[in-house]
């Protein structure tokens, strides 16, 4: 499968036939295997922002977690995940996550409540160059003025999101996975946060944006993958959402109509 040509087409993330299943207790003494995602295929190229849109609770976060190798113990996955043509094994993702591959999680609960923002962003690095860079990045996101010395509870929702984005930026991540980065923000703030992801894609990173908000996704994404019942029912250019006729799946059409 993997060859030099594959790399050359600048695919950053290539997910093929991904299935994730959960073990669940069904009753007091027995349990079943619950498949939350099945046969999912998603591709993200460098410089591209792909949005995965699906209703809350459709297992979208699991997708992010499976890419990063942080699925809970009672979940199993099958299929293939490739990063720049290279198969992502557990060992490999453990080397790459946090540097080349970065997660931008939902919000403030993903920050250590008892550690200052700056300390968390630096991840233990103390060298002057990294500090310098952090200050620049924070400045860029309007988080100068000593925000690095604040605790997470002192940040507003928007500030927390921007702090989480700066973490990915500081690492110069080539693949950024944003897991529902907007809930709890008003429309204006949410737009601002999403525009930061657009900038990151324009700077050359591949961005996978996982969201339930089709409206916002359409404003920033090149491609939209619609998830329904655990699989991708539509994978199309964002511009195809201009008219109902260019959409394929009934679920997507329903979504489209709901927008009106």
């Amino acid at each position, binding site marked *: 499968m993997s060859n030099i040509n594959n790399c050359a087409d600048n695919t950053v993330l290539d997910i093929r036939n991904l299935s994730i299943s959960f073990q669940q207790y069904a009753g007091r003494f027995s349990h079943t295997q619950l498949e939350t995602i099945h046969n999912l295929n998603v591709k993200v190229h460098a410089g591209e922002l792909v949005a995965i849109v699906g209703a809350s609770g459709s297992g979208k976060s699991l997708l992010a977690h499976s890419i990063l190798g*942080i699925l809970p113990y009672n979940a199993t996955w099958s299929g293939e995940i490739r990063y720049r043509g290279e198969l992502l094994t557990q060992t490999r993702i453990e080397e*790459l996550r*946090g540097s080349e591959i970065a997660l931008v*999680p939902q919000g403030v*609960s993903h*920050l*250590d409540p008892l*550690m200052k923002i700056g300390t968390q962003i630096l991840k233990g690095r103390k060298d002057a160059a990294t500090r310098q860079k952090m200050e620049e990045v924070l400045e860029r996101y309007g988080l100068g003025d000593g925000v690095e010395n604040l*605790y997470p509870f002192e940040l507003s929702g928007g500030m927390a999101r921007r702090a989480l984005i700066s973490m990915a930026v500081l690492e110069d991540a080539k693949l950024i996975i944003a897991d529902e980065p907007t809930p709890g923000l008003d429309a204006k703030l949410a737009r601002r946060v999403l525009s930061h992801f657009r900038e990151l894609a324009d700077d050359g990173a591949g961005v996978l944006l996982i969201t339930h908000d089709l409206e916002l996704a359409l404003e920033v994404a090149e491609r939209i993958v619609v998830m329904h019942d655990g699989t991708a029912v539509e994978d199309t250019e964002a511009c195809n959402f201009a008219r109902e006729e260019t959409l394929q799946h009934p679920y997507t059409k329903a979504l489209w109509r709901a927008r009106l």
Partner: protein
Amino acid sequence: MEVAVKTAKNLVRVALLLLCASAIAFTLVSISPLDPLQTNIGQAALGSLSAEQTAQLESYWGVGEPPIQRYLSWLGDFVRGDMGISLLYRQSVATVIAEKLANSLLLLAFAWVISGVLGFTLGIIAGAYQGRAIDRAIQSYSLIIASTPLFWIGIMLLLIFAVWLQIAPIGLSVPIGMEAADVTLIDRLRHAILPALALSITGIANITLHTREKMIAVMGSDYVLFARARGESTRRIVTRHGVRNVILPAMTLQFALINEILAGTILVEQVFSYPGLGQAVVTAGLGGDMPLLLAITVISTALVFGGNFIANTLYGVVDPRIRKGVSK
């Protein structure tokens, strides 16, 4: 400012609680058939009390006065340091307690520190590696010990170290009447080892179980998941995020342990015949020495509430969320 106001409120609360607790203890002592006023006169052990001492005792307990007045007058004396006369030790209660407490403090401090340090460490390790062999081993130890009566642990230690191996004293070597000054430091330490060990064995299990629970909660948190996604290793997550977030609840646990250890000394000192506060409780209780029993109860309760108060205050100082005045 916020912190100061909170601390003051807390202090008032603790004082009121202590007041209520002392009233309860006083009531229980008063309604007990061993009420000094009813038993004193007839009790053979007290036959040698001089008329003067009896009068002193009667005025201390306020014979014939209504209960509330009796309580208030007892409280007034108590606060001024006059805790009455111990019927068994023939000394002022304050003197007896000072001596016994000095003996027990050694045990208490040792068990408190060891339980805290080891219990915290084991709890962190077990919680961080939940479900692995090391967790199961630590968990088994804690659960078994939690099901084991402290006094039986004491008996087993006595059996193993004093009877079978004969490397520890069998207790009773410091008779009740003996002056503390007559006992050498080495001797005292020798006698303190086993009771301290027994107290620590249960204390560790107690702290470990609770710390493990907290650690599991931390390890399951969003921020630990994110730290993992950022490439931090388990070891780093444990030291950077785990310890930091568990240490606050652990502090509360540590101070709550005072209660357990105080109760524990009663059992342990009885098993090892260790001449401390715990043994004095049993002696006083069985011998009808109510002034002593009452005073020890009030002082122990004060220690527990004091620990509570310190924990709450420290929490406010250490936790930035409270320190910076944001209610949780």
